[in-house]
């Protein structure tokens, strides 16, 4: 982005001036002489006639935030309406708060959120157990449907999982024996 579009960050203006205000286009020789309204790859899904090139509009009534919201740093203001499902909490919540320090353009933002999702899954299990609820994981994963429609596939999956589990167990036992022999 050039200085004509956005004033330099060094001067830290209190109001960011956009291309609509930075330069008086009437003083640019040849301004708009080749403008062609048909040269618009956004037709027909964008109605350019309603584009005022400004970031202000009559805002809807604002919803009152009653839960913790995490707002993208790219937003100028909190959108008028938002969801209130599953507010951030626990360790995953702390990770999500951290992630929102970075913009949507930054990989750290998304990678931390993905990490938080995995942590949140474990938190969900702990939450269930804390409430005295033993989650029926096979049912939650649709194993009954697999049994009904793909018995062979299910047996194969169980076989592979058993084989992997047994291999890991065997390797662990072998390593343990090896270490104890070394200690002797």
């Amino acid at each position, binding site marked *: 982005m050039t200085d004509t579009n956005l004033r330099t960050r060094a001067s830290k203006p209190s109001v960011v001036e956009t291309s609509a205000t930075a330069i008086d286009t009437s003083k640019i020789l040849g301004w708009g002489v080749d403008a062609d309204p048909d040269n618009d790859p956004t037709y*027909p*899904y*964008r*109605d*350019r006639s309603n*584009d*005022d090139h*400004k*970031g*202000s*509009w009559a*805002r*809807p*009534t604002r*919803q*009152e935030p009653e839960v913790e*919201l*995490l*707002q*993208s740093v*790219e*937003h100028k203001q*909190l*959108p*008028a*309406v*938002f*969801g*209130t*499902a*599953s507010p951030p909490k626990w360790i*995953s919540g702390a990770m*999500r708060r951290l*992630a*929102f320090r970075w913009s*949507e353009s930054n*990989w750290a933002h*998304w990678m931390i*959120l*993905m990490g938080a*999702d*995995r942590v*949140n*899954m474990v*938190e*969900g*299990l702990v939450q269930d157990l804390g409430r005295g609820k033993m*989650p*029926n*994981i096979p*049912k*939650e*994963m*649709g194993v*009954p*449907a*697999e049994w009904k*429609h*793909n018995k062979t*596939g299910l047996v194969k999956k169980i076989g592979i999982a058993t084989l992997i589990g047994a291999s890991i167990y065997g390797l662990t036992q072998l390593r343990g024996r090896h270490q104890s022999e070394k200690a002797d």
Partner: protein
Amino acid sequence: MRAMDYRGPYRVRVDDKPMPQIQHPRDAIVKVTRSCICGSDLHLYHGMVPDTRIGQTFGHEFTGIVEEVGPEVGNLKAGDHVLVPFNIACGQCHFCKQGLFGNCHESNPSATAVGGIFGYSHTAGGFDGGQAQYARVPYADFGPTLIPDWMDADDAVLLTDVVPTGYQAAEMGGIQKGDTVVVFGAGPIGIMAARCAWLFGAGRVIVIDHIDYRLEFVKNFAPAEVYNFKELDDVVTFMKKTTDGLGADVCIDAVGAEATGSMLQTILGKRMKLEAGSAIALHWAINSVKKGGIVSIVGVYGPTGNLVPIGNVVNKGLTLRGNQAAVKRHLPKLIDHIKAGHINPKAMITHRVPLDDIADAYHMFSDKLDNMIKPVLLPNGA
């Protein structure tokens, strides 16, 4: 009320949750009559969309009967049966004023790149969705549309996403009469995109997938030429050969982040999550379209980045177009198309599932069991 409850990748169940409340003067509460599982819900189910939190209820394709409206909703009343577009749009922001209802700036605090979407992670606003007995519908004076008396409820629920998205996929292709159109993906969106390509005057419609029962369906439904890419040596070479060496005029990516067909993309995008999913369908689309052609993208990808041959986009002079469908914009035309018999969306529904069996439905849809194409949930019974 009973509602779908996400517990982590590949794990969902139905739990009792509090009834949704009016939280904004433009809200409505609807009693859900139909709710679908969408192919893009599988990205959430597979843990591919960042900031998908346990406890959230998914579901962005639903119809319902209005139970209650907020004080600023003057055009709906209790008892109205409405279809609810998956986009949550205010109708008055900079983007909504331009008809970009999938890009509303007043419905999603978590991200600026996407507007609010029902039940689609916090990256899309943190709203609970419609895979529940009741749902909160923000901006109810703008989004929901009364279902005409003559319309089948199954057609109505498919107007909330599948039909407009398939239609917009074809529309963004800029299809001209006689054009060859290739649709990658024979899921519900690809099926509808192939059908709608004819409405724009396509001369030839080809659909590529690897699931035979879906190819067989679209072959008759669209109708279309169909090819299983697992039976082709090289998808792009085949496309060139079948189009006189030129390539297709228009390619549509109706697959998105979970595409099969490249081990590299699968490992990087689906297993290691180092890409925003596997982009092999988009890769093929870019390489199969002719020089100067158009690639229309409605397949859903994550927010980071993907390996695609962007150099070929430049060298071939391609136009890439993509967006979330602006459902509200399409509805009048699509309702007319259904009335005229031009499209018959409900033919795609293969399974009707009680809400309590949602875990089975997700698994079956994910693993393509029992020839499932489109499952519809009945949260409050038939």
